[in-house]
């Protein structure tokens, strides 16, 4: 029904380039999270979609229609903010009704939608409360109900959970996902928390310096990061120093060809996840420092002989791990390893 796409958006604040030729296409009913370090332009991207920031260049399309010139209050976007945004002079029901009144819905229709929205976030009993009488989690749920009651084309969430404590955060996160799926609303979820992004999204967009580094399903972003930046930002990763010689990557005696690296000869950093490493005769000679049993898996930290770096190896939980102090050789899943200068 309503897809969302941003095409070649550039937005600057003075000399800061918040969005740099930024493009993003989201399908109808999909939840895409924007993940990235502080200041990479996530909020700005959301605000451009909402109509609160006017980009210097580029267009925003909703359901195929260009809304770039539509003022914020005519865009039909539901927005949930990081800070508490309930109107303090209205109770929960009136907050939800606000957007229905501006749409001039009949009292009957308004009442019906308020009840639906309250039920969606399970706050029927709190309908008459004011924001100062609600907990942080409840306030964000009302904000969500208020945004959804208007049946928005796109739901925009800017770190809606960051002000909440860990337990409330994870329950509300799941609730947001459930509600978003049930209502089939297209949604953009901004966060700088990778667990949040990986667990809630259909696709994750990793941003860096105003650009989209990678847009892919969570598993793909995790297991096949498109760049060193994404690899470092999402999940834990080993960094090992090596050199490229005639297209072959070498770390001490260990050498391999990486299908994902076309680097010129010279020093290189190899990026590889703990689960993409293994013990193997041909690998890098190393000494086991410690082993941590994690239940389903085992983490073995080894010190490579050729470099000062510690390499973390992840083994299945049932495999017997080498004793601390013993000598091992570590090699990588060559199809998964990335390189960086």
């Amino acid at each position, binding site marked *: 029904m309503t897809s969302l796409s941003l095409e070649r958006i550039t937005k600057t604040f003075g000399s800061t380039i918040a969005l740099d030729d930024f493009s993003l296409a989201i399908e109808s009913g999909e939840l895409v999270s924007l993940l990235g370090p502080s200041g990479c332009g996530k909020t700005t991207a959301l605000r451009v979609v909402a109509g609160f920031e006017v980009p210097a260049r580029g267009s925003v399309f909703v359901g195929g229609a260009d809304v770039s010139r539509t003022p914020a209050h005519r865009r039909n976007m539901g*927005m949930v903010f990081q800070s*508490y*945004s309930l109107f303090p002079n209205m109770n929960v029901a009136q907050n939800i009704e606000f957007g229905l009144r501006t749409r001039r819905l009949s009292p009957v229709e308004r009442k019906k939608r308020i009840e639906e929205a309250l039920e969606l976030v399970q706050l029927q009993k709190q309908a008459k409360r004011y924001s100062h*009488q609600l907990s942080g989690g409840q306030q964000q749920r009302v904000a969500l109900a208020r945004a959804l009651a208007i049946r928005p084309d796109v739901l*925009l969430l800017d770190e809606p959970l960051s002000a909440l404590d860990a337990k409330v955060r994870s329950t509300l996160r799941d609730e947001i996902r459930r509600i978003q799926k049930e209502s089939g609303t297209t949604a953009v979820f901004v966060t700088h928390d990778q667990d949040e992004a990986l667990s809630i999204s259909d696709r994750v967009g990793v941003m860096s310096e105003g650009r989209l580094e990678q847009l892919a399903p969570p598993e793909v972003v995790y297991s096949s990061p498109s760049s060193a930046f994404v690899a470092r930002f999402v999940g834990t990763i080993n960094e090992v120093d090596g050199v490229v010689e005639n297209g072959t990557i070498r770390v001490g005696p260990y050498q391999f060809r990486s299908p994902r690296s076309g680097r010129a000869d010279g020093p290189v950093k190899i990026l590889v996840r703990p689960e993409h490493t293994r013990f193997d005769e041909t690998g890098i000679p190393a000494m086991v420092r410690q082993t941590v049993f994690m239940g389903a898996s085992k983490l073995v930290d080894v010190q490579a002989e050729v470099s000062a770096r510690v390499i973390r190896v992840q083994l299945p939980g049932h495999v017997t791990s080498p004793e601390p102090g013993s000598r091992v050789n570590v090699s990588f899943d060559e199809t998964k390893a990335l390189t960086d200068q």
Partner: protein
Amino acid sequence: MTSMGGQRRLGRRLILLIGAIYFAFPFVAMARFAFQNVQVFDLGRSTLFENWSLTSVTSAFGEDYFWDALRLSIQLALGTALLTLFVLVPTAVWVHLRIPRARAVVEFLTVLPYVIPAIALVAGIVVIKPHARWFLNSDLSLIPFYAVLALPFTYRSIDAGLRAIDLRTLTEASRSLGAGWNVTLRRVLIPSLKSALISSTFLTVAVVLGEYTIADVLLKRTLPAFMAEYRQSDPRGGYALAVLSLLATTLLFAGIGVATRPRGGRNPRTDEPSPSTEETPS
């Protein structure tokens, strides 16, 4: 810890008490002078409860001029308060949202009417008077002057109110829900600024009821002008009116304060068994 807190509380009460006495004494003295039929040099502790009466104001109430002056001053107070609401509030909101860096400059500009003596404003009025008779002839022409005179106080209270709310988020929430600027201002911002606007109105009324210089220059018969004049012929009646106007404004605003208390009770979150359990609906 508790004894320190207790001491601090005691200290605070003491300061409050001293403050109350400081303000109450002259007020009581004025009230006694105005409402007690006792010779001034006999006003002492022994005569505290003797011969109180309202006769001193009844003659003032008998004057038509008094009622005209009262009506004009009420109109001026209302007009000034409305002008402030319709011009100053949107301006302050705009400054906060669009040019937050200019807040200090605007703040400085709004103090000027306080720093510049009223007589300078009067001199200005005298200069434009011959050219603006059509405007200055109207009694309500005082409204813009009073709005400017009240500016140092009204702007400060509205500014404090704007700083106390999350203006940007509330505005954007409202806009994203389909409200234009007008609706946002009327239905979200002004209600959220209620207490700031009440105190700003209070200060406006105080300025209007206390201003004499400009009214005198423009020959407007406002309540302060009437009282100043009346005091010449009947000192006790003049002071009686002053006491009454002070009491009336205080009561009025105490009433508004009570009427606009935050709804939904003081701290209802605590009267619920355990709000934290609601966070994890099964």
